[in-house]
């Protein structure tokens, strides 16, 4: 089943799951993406099959010459089965849109999943760099280099007034979206979260769920990103989001301290109950797992779970997703079978009975 090269990815957890980097007790990962199109070819949604195929050819050729993408893997989506496609979505390497109409679409994956380049998504190219922890600066400097390399060989659609021309006018300009995946359980518990999210939307940022646009926030994870792409330099956009994020992080830290000072017993009770459930349950749904793992992760971050590594908790978030479970099992599983497999995987990771 599935692609051999893709199976290799399964063995190595993504770089951004390391659970390291600045403020990694609150920020899981930082991501920067750039939207780019080629001059003279209609944007993907309006392009003929022949034009899409030509864009794919040009993009692959240019990616092949990039030093930054040396030894990267390129997959054409049409060559992948449904589980493999879903697997890439779960790893945040492609968007959900990218796997729907698969023809002439591809993704290049480089530097241990730090870099991914989607071809023929809404824009001809969507470059992405992901780092663990709060680290937008490094992500920006890497993607800037990659973008410069590609712009040597690809004629980008660009206007001196409006910058990079993109399919959606919300991306016009820098084509940049910087986003940070933050775990904010104490703001949710203390019911501060709506106030915080409301404030950040007024400062030009937006908050979404775990898998981006249109997804619900679950497991207390929030993806916070810039809304504006034009009229400011890339550095300014990134500084702005980092500055506001630091404030959100500070609020979450204060919330955690206050919970520990005033409601420690209730907090520990919640965390240890979640741990107990995960360690012993025989079947766990994907949303239940997310909520329980969020509580356990908070326990780790507060230093309450001696010996449990944050990296293990992070990996469980990803490995308990449907396509990951099915790839681990080596075959398609029904929803019911997945719940059993998920519970088994988590039990064994937490040192419970297998």
């Amino acid at each position, binding site marked *: 089943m599935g692609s051999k090269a893709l199976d290799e990815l399964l063995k190595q957890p993504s770089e951004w799951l390391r659970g390291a980097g600045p403020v990694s007790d609150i920020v899981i990962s930082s991501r920067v993406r750039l939207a780019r199109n080629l001059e003279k070819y209609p944007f993907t949604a309006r392009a003929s099959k022949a034009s899409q195929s030509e864009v794919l050819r040009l993009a692959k050729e240019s990616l092949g010459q990039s030093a930054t993408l040396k030894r990267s893997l390129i997959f054409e989506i049409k060559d992948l089965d449904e589980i493999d496609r879903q697997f890439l979505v779960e790893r945040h390497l492609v968007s959900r849109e990218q796997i729907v109409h698969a023809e002439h679409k591809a993704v290049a994956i480089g530097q241990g999943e730090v870099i991914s380049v989607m071809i023929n998504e809404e824009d001809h190219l969507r470059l992405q760099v992901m780092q663990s922890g709060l680290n937008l600066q490094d992500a920006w400097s890497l993607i800037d280099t990659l973008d410069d390399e590609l712009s040597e060989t690809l004629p980008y659609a*660009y206007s*001196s007034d409006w910058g990079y021309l993109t399919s*959606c006018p919300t991306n016009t300009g820098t084509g940049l979206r910087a986003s940070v995946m933050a775990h904010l359980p104490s703001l949710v518990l203390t019911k501060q979260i709506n106030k915080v999210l409301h404030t950040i939307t007024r400062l030009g940022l937006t908050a979404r769920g775990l898998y981006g646009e249109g997804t619900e926030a679950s497991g207390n994870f929030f993806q916070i990103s810039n809304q504006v792409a034009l009229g400011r330099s890339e550095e300014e956009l990134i500084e702005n989001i980092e500055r506001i994020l630091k404030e959100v992080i500070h609020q979450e830290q204060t919330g955690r301290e206050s919970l520990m000072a005033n409601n420690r017993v209730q907090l520990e009770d919640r965390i240890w109950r979640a741990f107990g459930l995960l360690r012993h349950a025989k079947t766990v749904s994907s949303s239940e797992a997310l909520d329980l793992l969020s509580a356990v992760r908070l326990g780790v971050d507060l230093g309450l779970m001696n010996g449990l590594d944050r990296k293990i908790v992070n990996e469980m978030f990803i490995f308990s997703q449907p396509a990951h479970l099915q790839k681990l099992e080596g075959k398609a599983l029904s929803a019911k079978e997945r719940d059993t497999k998920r519970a088994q995987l988590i039990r064994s990771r937490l040192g419970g009975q297998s």
Partner: protein
Amino acid sequence: MVCELCKQAQATVHLTEIVNEEMTELHLCEACANQKGAQVESHFGLADMLSGLADFGKVHEQEEPATKACAACGMTYDDFRKVGRLGCAECYHTFKRSLGGLLKRIHGSPLHLGKSPIRLARTPKSKAELADLRRKLERAIENEAFEEAARLRDQIRVMEQQEQQAKPRGR
């Protein structure tokens, strides 16, 4: 304050106009401002940028005809309004008028200040310098420093003209 045109209604629209370093002010009521809209824009170099500030946006914002179509990809303005996505890079040129206002509403500014492709960055024209001037112009408008804004605008024009001559296909 009474409208300077009809001399009857309350003036609610206040315009600052700078031509050849001379600054004049115009105080109009909503109705007269609407009527004057097109005329004002025609000799108003900064009208686009000042529109937000002067609360004049509604008055002169241009809508493209629904059937206007992009010569390169065939997308009509009506199509664009339905799907919210442009068809190709050329659409930006085709629907330039409406997009200027739209981009400003989405992003708060209609001017790119970020990086440019390596190929273009290497051309002799100093992009960074131009971007810097545009940024200063925006700041000047934000701070209502109109004399400074006019000076910067003229400087940008000169540079843009030089750029046009150096690279005839620039938009």
